[in-house]
């Protein structure tokens, strides 16, 4: 092999090596975590700040849109179990109907974040910390049950215990008779709309998991509410007085 041939051979070998290494990336696990993350430069980050500001300036405010607060279709099947029947019975018992625009304008509207919890959650506590539910059902030890289709868990410092609320994204009336990880919520959602000055905090909707895992329940719920996760809720009555017709 003369010098020229050797050079050609080395170039060819380097090219092959390059292609092999280029094709030898670690498999993409779909998590989106780059296999070889690099740091953007300061000028890139400064430009990114400009882009973030422009995005905010060019965006449509969700509250100004009728669509983002559009009523759900009233099918609560995603909550599992007898959610639809329970919601129906709840409405019949308390004379609740799909709200009119007049009713909505009379109720107090708050920013909220809709999330899901279920009896399959790893941190699910038995018995629950829910206060007496509208059905009057209890565990044998006397603790009240969460009811799929009507029970939501809220931050009691934002929504009084036992309040009646209406969730447009699900077209669902709910009883705020359970409490969640309120300290963690307030911390992790600080700066988000559900903890702003008009925020009602998170509204954690109870699901009966059935055959689903905790994660599947959350995924199903997320698919159902979509961007309405950040939306509005109405407090129809503050506190438990609506059950007895008083305050």
């Amino acid at each position, binding site marked *: 092999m003369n010098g020229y041939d050797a050079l050609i051979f080395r170039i060819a070998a380097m090219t092959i090596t390059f292609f092999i290494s280029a094709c030898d990336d670690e498999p993409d696990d779909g998590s989106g975590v780059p296999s070889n993350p690099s740091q953007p430069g300061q000028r890139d980050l400064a430009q990114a700040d400009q882009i973030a500001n422009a*995005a905010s300036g060019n965006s449509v405010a969700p509250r100004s849109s009728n*669509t983002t607060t559009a009523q759900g279709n009233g099918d609560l099947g995603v909550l599992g179990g007898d959610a639809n029947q329970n919601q129906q019975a709840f409405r019949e018992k308390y004379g609740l109907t799909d709200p009119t625009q007049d009713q909505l304008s009379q109720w107090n509207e708050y920013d909220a974040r809709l999330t899901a919890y279920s009896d399959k959650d790893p941190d699910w506590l038995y018995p629950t910390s829910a206060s007496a539910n509208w059905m009057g059902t209890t565990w044998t030890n006397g603790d009240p049950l969460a009811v799929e289709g009507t029970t939501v868990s809220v931050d009691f410092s934002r929504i009084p215990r036992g309040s009646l609320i209406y969730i447009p994204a699900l077209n669902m009336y709910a009883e705020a008779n359970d409490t969640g990880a309120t300290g963690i919520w307030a911390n992790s959602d600080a700066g988000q709309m559900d903890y702003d000055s008009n925020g009602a905090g998170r509204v954690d909707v109870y699901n009966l998991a059935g055959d689903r895992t905790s994660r599947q329940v959350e995924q199903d719920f997320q*698919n159902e509410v979509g961007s309405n996760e950040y*939306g509005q809720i109405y407090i129809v009555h503050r506190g438990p007085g609506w059950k007895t017709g008083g305050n």
Partner: protein
Amino acid sequence: MLAHRVGLFAFLWASIRTAAIGQPADSWDAVGDLVRQAAPKATAEYCGALAYRSIDYYLFVLEQNELSGVVLIRQQAGSEPIIIDADTSFFPFKKDQEPALDEPVIDGVEILLRRRNLAKRIGIPRDTSTRFPEVSLVGDAIDRVVFPISGFRLESDATGEILQRLRTGPATEVEPRTAPPGSIIVSPTHFSRSGPVYLGHAGIVGENGSIYSADARLDGALVGNMSIASWLKRFSGNNGCYAFVLHAPLEAGAQRF
């Protein structure tokens, strides 16, 4: 060349159907079943069908909350229908690669989409647009914000192509969970031949962990109503999440190392 195009369009118009008239009922049922099973949470809008070389192609637009996209189904006589493409917008070509479909089929799909958009009076083509007839405006909403600042355009509303453009373009990939404000986040559409279809999405990371993205229910307007946490929760399982910071344009005489 013009005569060729005119002839091709005439052929396609003759081949295109807006209803499943003339289709064997079980064939149409199978296509409908496939769409329903592939995306049970989405609303499917039938946009028409075309035939090419004895193979039928059915086009649907899917809408699911803020997401929208297209699904193209191929039905060959004697076999089960299969999904051959699905994304937030039609994306038949990959740069420097062979098209995934024959050109007459691609032209036919374009006609179907243009006719659908015309009927709905949406997606009026812009003079400078080289995009396929719009179904979703995920890329357009980002370009409108990003281009005046960075000079970079995605030039696509299909999440698969957007991801490809960012990976090969002037951008640094970053960890989505900690993506800085101003990053572009994309979750590509995923599908398999017999379903399911998981529509993807793309947006801009804002301050305080919010994300701004096109909302199909608002004619593609940019809306800030998701957080990074909810995005990851929603898309990381089936679609994957990827984030990129665009490179700032170099000043004259400067070099990027």
